[in-house]
């Protein structure tokens, strides 16, 4: 017990981002001997809303493995839920994320967990089985969508059909956890769906006006969105997968991508802001040399956005690249 109290204090002092509230919560908990305050510390990787007010009475503790899922949970849970994001640092490659002890205690305390699946956040399964709980509900988006395990592209949240179904599952689970607030959660679920409308309209209008626009990418991050918008993806899948998996790409594939950019066979070049290397930077340089508009895309939701406004911003950046020839390096 004593070590838990000390780590609660230490982590509250260390995490400057979680603000004075977490600090005082941890100190108060230390005074009363409540080890639960450890969960107030999200660690350096946990950003927006990490643990702020964790342990406040009557609130459901929830975790989104990626910041976009945490954002949807808090939009639906509103004042009855504390949602913490595990991966939210836009400078970190989520594929190489390693969970810290503070992440484990955050997940252990959660009553609702939303995770992506498809191996993208498999560390979540380990943490959950390390602290089994019968009352915890886990929404695995891969399972929710009924996707087979060999689905190649794990960036499911870029698919416009994904998040409405995730939101419905969150409404269902939160209502089961707190039946008294079920109507509130349902209303928030409907409101969430309406916040996605501008994005869906932007995708529909891109498809109407610019279907078949040839594009090149570094990684399959935004592929689902590009497919929904009717863009023609010319980068070979193997190259995208190699860059995503950090594998040395074959020279044939690199040459093909070079040729796409050099001969201006694509109208837009999208690259993953969160994972760069000499290979992706050489593509970026080529695109800039040949005046091909560049759009930076993110794997996890950047700060200052909600899920809907982030997706809308990405789609608008894509549209601006095609219509105004404008680059959007970062959001």
């Amino acid at each position: 017990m004593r070590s838990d109290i000390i780590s609660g204090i230490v982590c509250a002092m260390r995490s400057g981002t979680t603000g004075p509230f977490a600090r005082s919560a941890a100190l108060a908990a230390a005074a009363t001997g409540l080890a639960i305050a450890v969960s107030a510390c999200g660690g350096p990787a946990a950003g927006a809303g990490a643990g702020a007010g964790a342990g406040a009475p009557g609130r459901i503790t929830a975790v989104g493995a990626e910041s976009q899922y945490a954002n949807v949970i808090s939009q639906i849970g509103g004042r009855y839920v504390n949602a913490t994001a595990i991966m939210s640092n836009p400078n970190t490659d989520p594929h190489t994320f390693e969970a810290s002890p503070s992440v484990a205690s955050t997940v252990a305390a959660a009553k609702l967990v939303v995770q992506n699946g498809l191996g993208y956040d498999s560390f979540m399964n380990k943490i959950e089985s390390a602290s089994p709980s019968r009352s915890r509900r886990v929404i695995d988006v891969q399972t929710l969508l009924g996707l087979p395990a060999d689905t190649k592209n794990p960036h499911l949240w870029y698919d416009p059909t994904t998040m409405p179904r995730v939101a419905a599952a969150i409404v269902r689970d939160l209502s089961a956890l707190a039946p008294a607030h079920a109507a509130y959660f349902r209303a928030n679920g409907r409101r969430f769906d309406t916040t996605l409308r501008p994005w869906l309209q932007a995708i529909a209008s891109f498809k109407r006006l610019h279907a078949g626009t040839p594009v090149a990418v570094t990684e399959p991050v935004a592929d689902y969105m590009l497919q929904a918008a009717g863009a023609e993806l010319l980068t070979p899948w193997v190259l995208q997968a190699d860059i995503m998996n950090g594998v040395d790409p074959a020279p044939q594939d690199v040459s093909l991508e070079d040729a796409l950019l050099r001969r201006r066979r694509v109208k837009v070049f999208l690259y993953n802001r969160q994972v760069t290397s000499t290979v992706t930077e050489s593509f970026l340089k080529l695109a800039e040399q040949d005046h091909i508009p560049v759009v930076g895309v993110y794997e996890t939701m950047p700060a200052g956005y909600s899920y809907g406004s982030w997706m809308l911003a990405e789609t608008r950046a894509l549209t601006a690249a095609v219509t105004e020839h404008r680059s959007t390096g970062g959001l």
Partner: protein
Amino acid sequence: MQALLHAIVEPGFFADGAVQTAAALGGVVAVVAGLIGVFTVIRSQAFAGHALSDIGSAGGSSAYLIGLAPLWGFVGISVLAAAAMERIGVQRARGRDVATGVVLGVGFALASLFLYLGMTYHNASGEIPTILFGSVFTLSASDLPLVMGLGAVALLVVLTLYRPLLLASVSPELAAARGVRVRLVGGAYLLALAITVALCDLTIGAILSTALLVGPAAAALRLTGRPHRAALLAAGISLACTWLGLLLAWDSFYWPPLRHGWPVSFFIVTLVLIAYLAAGALARGQTKRG
């Protein structure tokens, strides 16, 4: 004839820009590594060479962190590490491996720190396999002048000091008696070695680069006892392994069942091993006949 050529060389190999750049850069590095490596083997400094190349991973990752080309990191850290080894006492035969091992340990510690920082705060995770295992096909032609310049510096050091270096390598006592400043010569060689290792880091990666430095030289020294002949032979073997490795990596893109392209560094290092074993067999055959 045409069909045979196509069976060995899959189409597009010679015309491809990435292949041409890799062949030019890899060729320069292979020749320098072969020539310099002979002295590494004669001086029994293979472990020092290996340590310098592994430490290169710290240089490559730190350079990427601050936005420099990895080559600068490889060169900078290797030269620094070589200086540290010299200070601790890499020249003495006794306790030399200990000095090397100590510096190697520090180098790996730094590499783990920089790689952690790169992955956590600087979206560099895609760069790590390139630093560790190389990616010669993704090098840019604009690196060529720098690589040639660095290679020339290393070769110039060794050529200028050729005779005293050779003497000091074979018999330090005799060299000292003849007025050779053994430690200075050894230090200068260590500098050339550090530069060479950094170049190998760039082409086949920090973990594998000793193979190119030591393997061809060791193979050549199995075939001839004369240092200058061995140096030229090592350069030839090293160049052949590199270019053949490029060709096999290109061809492997079409091999079943993967049809995916195998890593080029694997082929180069495997060919170096084959050359070493073949040289051993050849040497045994020669001694039997003679």
